[in-house]
């Protein structure tokens, strides 16, 4: 499979990237990739919804709600995801009678469900903090002005607060998505065959180390795509700011 015209020492060097390996295991790697993308996408989306609720509770002004939200964020940001995964996956087995009586055992029996649950709860804590920072960055006077103009609560959020907050939150959100993609590799530790899981299985079958490098390449492509997409959106959203700076300069 190696190109024949390369000098010997180079061929030996390239042998670490075994191309033949890809022809026999490439498909499984791609299947794993799909599972990874699935887990990351679902967790990020659900995490966003949950984060909104947590953020609302945190900023509600109600002492009890704020306290609960603070405890949630502190706990889930300080606990390793792997520990959470084990807690949910193995803990579900211990609580089997209870879960069965609640009719939830069918879901908790699936490793994939436990993983998405753990990842969602974990990323929600981080996203809530990002959201709080971004919403807090919008000056309160703007909300007062919008209220004085007679805008409804929904319209204030939709047209005044969120467009500005999203611009601030964009980069941290992009980093969080990258973080979730990377963290999702931990689900391989509880038998889920995501990209990492498939990679481990293939390595166990072939003892060919280069499969790890291929997996790393796939993860890199995913995270780089997210990073570049975020940067592109950020540039598009802040075009008017660049114009303003230029105008102020002149």
């Amino acid at each position, binding site marked *: 499979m190696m190109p024949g015209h390369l000098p010997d020492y180079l061929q030996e060097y390239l042998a670490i990237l075994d191309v033949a390996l890809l022809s026999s295991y490439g498909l499984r790697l791609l299947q794993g990739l799909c599972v990874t993308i699935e887990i990351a996408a679902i967790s990020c989306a659900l995490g966003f919804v949950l984060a909104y609720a947590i953020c609302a509770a945190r900023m509600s002004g109600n002492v009890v709600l704020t306290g609960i939200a603070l405890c949630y964020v502190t706990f889930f940001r300080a606990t*390793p995801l792997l*520990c959470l995964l084990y*807690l949910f996956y*193995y803990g579900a087995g*211990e609580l089997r009678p209870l879960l069965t009586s609640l009719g939830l055992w069918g879901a908790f029996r699936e490793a994939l469900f436990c993983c998405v649950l753990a990842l969602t709860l974990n990323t929600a804590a981080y996203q809530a903090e990002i959201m709080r920072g971004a919403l807090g960055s919008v000056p309160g006077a703007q909300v007062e002005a919008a209220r004085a103009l007679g805008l409804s609560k929904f319209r204030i959020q939709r047209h005044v607060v969120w467009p500005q907050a999203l611009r601030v939150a964009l980069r941290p959100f992009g980093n969080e998505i990258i973080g979730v*993609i990377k963290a999702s590799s931990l689900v*391989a530790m509880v038998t889920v065959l995501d990209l990492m899981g498939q990679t481990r299985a293939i390595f166990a079958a072939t003892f060919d180390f280069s499969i*790890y490098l291929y997996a*790393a390449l796939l993860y*890199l492509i995913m995270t780089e795509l997210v990073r570049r997409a975020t940067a592109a959106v950020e540039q598009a959203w802040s075009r008017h700011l660049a114009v303003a700076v230029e105008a102020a300069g002149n």
Partner: protein
Amino acid sequence: MDWSGLLFGPDGWGGLLLKGAGVTILLAISTLPLGFGGGLALALLKFAPYRTVRTGSEACITFFRGTPDLLVLFIVYFGLQALVDRVEKALAVDAHIELNAFAAGVVALSAVAAAYSSEVWFSALAAVPSSQLDAARALGLNKRQILFAVLLPQICPITLPGLGNIWNSLLKDTSIVSTIAVVDLLRAASEASRSTARPILFYGAAAAVYVVFGVASAMVQRRIEVRFDKKAAT
């Protein structure tokens, strides 16, 4: 609920968990010099006059930031082992050398911490006005003196919050070494829960200890930052 499993002594698992917590802390602290030092080195390389060096540093950072920590750990652990095996074969050595899993953990976590901290170092370094470098050069300081006497004293306080964040995530990321049989806090909890079939108790206890670590280190960081602010104010 029976909590006696957490007790110390012959029937309790408290001793093992405590030992594991010690290993977790030790691992995180061992990672610091290589991780933060490596990050500073990567950041300095980004100012290098040669394009290849800058690109190399950039590529290194992108790789370790974009690859899952677990994968980096496996690449280091199995990759270095494969390398050692190959060297053994080449030299025809009889003795089989097995790589230390703890050391592999330190190397992998350091690489990741270096990539992340390099961003913090870089932005702090970039904020130093270039006129200071000119002045230092005009005074006849050599490169090492410029770094240690001019640059580091002023950028260290600036980097503190950023490096603090990296330390916080490092403290949790150490848990991945449990997958290569290092008995850290999480692995200790795993072993205890497997022997007793009480996963909720032991993983919950491990999570609680991690939370205590996190809260404690946040408190220490705040104190250090306040002290630096006071120093800067006087």
